[in-house]
């Protein structure tokens, strides 16, 4: 059962990486405009 401790620690730190990625994405303004990229992708 000891392996559970390691696994949970690993999974939570992995999840934290995703949280950090989310924070970085928000701060760099990726969620500011959700409309224009949707139109742009159809142009080319």
């Amino acid at each position, binding site marked *: *059962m000891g392996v*559970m*401790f390691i696994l*949970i620690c690993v999974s*939570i730190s992995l*999840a934290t990486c*995703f*949280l950090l990625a*989310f*924070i970085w994405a*928000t*701060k760099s*303004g990726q*969620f*500011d*405009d*959700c*409309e*224009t990229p949707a*139109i*742009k992708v*159809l*142009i080319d």
Partner: protein
Amino acid sequence: MFYKYSHEGMQIACVHINLNIIQMQLRRFTISTPCFHCGLPCLKDSVTKDEHHFCCHGCLFVFEILQGNSLHKYYELEKSPGKPATEKSKEEYTYLDDAKFLEHFLKFNEQQTAIACFYIPNIHCASCIWLLENLYRINAHIKKVDVNFSSHEVYITYDKQNIRLSEIAHLLSQLGYPPHLSLDHEQQNAQKNHDDLLRLGVAGFCFGNVMLLSFPEYLSSDVPKEFQRFFGYLNLLLTIPVFFYAAKEWLYSSWISLKQKNINLDIPIALGLIALLSTSAFDIISKRGPGYCDSLCGFVFFLLIGKFFQKKTFQNLSFDRDYKAYFPLSTLRIQDNDKCAVPVHELQVGDTIFVRHQELIPVDGKLQSDHAQIDYSFVTGESDLIAKDKGQDIFAGGRIVGKAASIQVEKQVEQSFLTSLWKNVQNKEKSAVQTLTNTISPFFTLTVISIALASFAYYWLYGKNIAMAWYTFSSVLIVACPCALALTSSFTHGAMIRLLEKHRIFLKSGDILEKLAKINNVVFDKTGTLTSTTPRISLIFGNIDEQQQQILANIVHQSIHPVSQTLAKTFPLLTPIHLTEFNEIPGKGIAAKYNSQDFFVGSVSWISSLLELPKGLPQKISQQSCVAFAVGNKLCCVFATENNFRRGWENIVSRIAQKHAVHLISGDSKRDLDIVGKVFPKNNIHFNLDPFQKVAYIEKLQKSADSKVLMIGDGLNDSGALIESDVGVAVIEENSHFSPASDIILAAEKISLLPKMFSLSRATLNITYASFAISCIYNSLGITLAISGKLTPVFVAVLMPVSSVTVMLFTTFSSRRLCKKILGDDKWE
């Protein structure tokens, strides 16, 4: 039976399609081909190039620029995507290179490159985005352009050593995308805040993980001890950011309101949060149990969702405009017989400025030209032009019509008559109407605290069990968290704001709806609110054949007088002719010659001085608002320009009048008294009011006991009154992106929904009451268990989300149902 029915249906459908085709063909023959660039109908002698038709040289010009830079794809993405080029000279933008303005428009400024942000209202389709992002192909010094479609902003990265900002602005306006330049807009968008999203993200992350770690506890009670402890500590660790970061706002706000000795809804929330955290920490550290971390995180997460949902900003609409938004940024100053553009706020007393046709006068001053005609409709609501002579005082806010005028500055922009309108009113805070939630929350808080104290006292004094006393005390605080109270208003308001948006009614915030229910006086403005901004022309004498109509159209299309412009809208120009003579006499009319025959269009008194009027003319022909058309020495016909009252306005007013006192205040002259007198009570009709008198009128109404006033108006002349009133409703026409400061912005064609707004606001209150009742049921259940000391973490972890979700679903669905029932299902009109 079925066959016959469907067959008939087919036939009807076919006829319908045929009609459509015929209509389309008719349109094609009468109005001819649409312009390849902008889609407007082309005239018979339109410009043609490469087999494409253009309505004007402005459109052709843009087409040529684009073709010259192999940007033809612009026309492939969308059909007729463009707007005609605006005729602005390069000099008009030179003021942008002034350091003061650069600072405002530049987001980034280093040695080589700079990034400028412009607001461009004309962006409307995929072609626009494509063209703007390919600007670098037209001018190599523009490095990169980023378009934000929803907010109509463009970010332009350019090489500032080789191209100036004014040149970019000029290029944009040449292409039909003139930037809207005002300092007001820049300030408004200065800061973008990501905090709400980040908080929601963090709370969501912690909530999910805590739920996972708490899950074993829910299923069985014999989780191995070492796991229990490990999970407990992890939970506690994950709860800390939720408490100190995500829930910071509620803790802070309740602290502030405690300091001000005023109980708001944040206090029970903060109390609950503190009780949850301290109990959990105590339980986990002292190895008593798993704690309430899951409930805490869930609670904060739901609160944040509610907050996120309630906060809806409408891009392109601004509810807080001040005078800066109205004024141009620059004006032409005459210095040593030379005109140069200067920023408006740098004008000094004694300067002479030059204001052209359709430009706004930015300052108070004295007229230096011999004559000027000024359109003050925007400021006063009065629709007739005002003629001024040399040396007369001129107030800011008017538009010059016709010949350009030079004006000597007497007061700086900040001190003008118009600006003082804002400064006087803006210092006053809007009276905060107590919302239902705020009224209830002190009772709620006091009840919860007294129940908690009572149970504490009971177990301490009678049961002599101090541990049990603490346990029940914290349990009551935990379970009585005002989820439902807090979520009710956020979800009802959020749902309402979104539903109303589909009907083109925009609310500044949700609690406006609760304010509406308390309104008992409704004040209308006339011009632009009850009437549409374009007057209507009606033939009151004589008749006019098709050929004469075209001659009249040709004459009035060359004039810029508002009456001519109205006539021009009624009689579209189909066949351009060459007028051999054209002479516009200010204040009188136009004399023109075609095929050696004389034509006169103008005021009845002027025409009557030229020729003998026939007998039997109707009486009202002598009024000022009439315009006569004469051919040779014979009167052909007389038109009356009337204020074009909106369809069904009587109905709207009389429906509101059933439950509220209605008033009419107008800056216009009394000519429509007969029409409005039928609907409004005689004592409540006031004409000839200037903007300050309008504010005073609202103030007077508010002074009488519990009178809450709603003002509905448009334009600058009502802006003071809109700010002063308890609820200000601004009416906007389809094509203008301008509205004065207000609480509600209403599209002009949706004004008929105004009476229904009142029923909607009462319905909103009913939803709130019902949702409070639901939360009372859950709370009493929870509190009963808490007092009896049987509250377990698992029970709380189930009860809290269930009660929150019930409230969320109930408020969202009932708002949706009521909104549909009251406003009808006409949102796709």
